[in-house]
């Protein structure tokens, strides 16, 4: 668990309290060298505001885009990022590791 996890969850709760829709992205598995440990989180609101980190910046943009989809569809999804991935050219991890990120709506 990263040091600032509580501020991420608190922000998610605050957004919900303001009537905003929110998704939570969590690193659930890593392979090789990964910038953020398992359990690292990102909270995203429906306008694309986010707090936290799942990769130290490498794939946050892609995760936020997916999170907006998850917020509107209401269905969680599991995503992978890494050098073996098709999307690696666009949003791969510079460190060469691979991570799985679970993106879920908070309802």
């Amino acid at each position, binding site marked *: 668990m990263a040091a600032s996890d509580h501020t991420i969850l608190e922000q998610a*709760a605050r957004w919900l309290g303001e009537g905003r829709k929110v998704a939570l992205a969590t690193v659930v598995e890593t392979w090789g060298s990964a910038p953020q440990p398992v*359990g690292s989180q990102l909270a995203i609101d429906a306008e694309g505001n986010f707090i936290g980190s799942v990769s130290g910046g490498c794939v946050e943009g892609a995760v936020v885009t997916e999170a907006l989809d998850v917020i509107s569809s209401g269905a969680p999804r599991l995503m992978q990022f890494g050098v073996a991935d098709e999307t690696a050219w666009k949003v791969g991890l510079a460190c060469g590791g691979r991570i799985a990120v679970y993106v879920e709506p908070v*309802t």
Partner: protein
Amino acid sequence: MRRQVLDGLLEARAQRRAVALITDLASGAQRLVPRSEAARDALADRLEEAFRFDQSSSHDGQFINVHNPPLRLVIIGAVHIAQSVIPIAQQLGYDITVIDPRGAFATGARFPGVMLHDEWPDEVIPTIGLDPRTALIALTHDPKIDDPALKLALASDVFYIGALGSRKTQGSRVARLRETGFAEADVTRIRGPIGLDIGARGAPEIAVSIMAEMTRALRLGA
């Protein structure tokens, strides 16, 4: 994640209770397991390890996310070295409490944004409680202030106890504590001279050595 699960996580944190959130990654089903009930859970073995090493992980499509209480550092002595320790400890995620009965030391101007107590350690510590996610360091050099705090730390399961002072100071400190009935195995829990031996010079480098030793105790239990 349901709103009530999020609220449960935040509540556990506020009350310093360890919980794990288990998510079935295929179905999205989630359950919150308090550490106190982990032994009776179907994933008991994995949960025990996860809590102890503060390590979240996935197994067979089940994701265990550990939410241990925040780390806490109790500093005895609102002294110069404390001012160097605090910013590093905050970066490492510790909530800080500073205790110093000498009113002139524990002032908000010297320690902005930190919980300050200008009472004696044996008055304050029982009210805040010590637990396995807490470390305590005694920095005053004054046995009248340091010793009562160290005694309470030794009677608790804090993960790190350190005391500032030379080898000679540490020797007489250990002798005093032995005389009051603490066993040899107890007093060896006190790291003194405090910090890893990195040849630190001056307060900022001593702070680095203290926080390095504390991190080793947290992660490796040594």
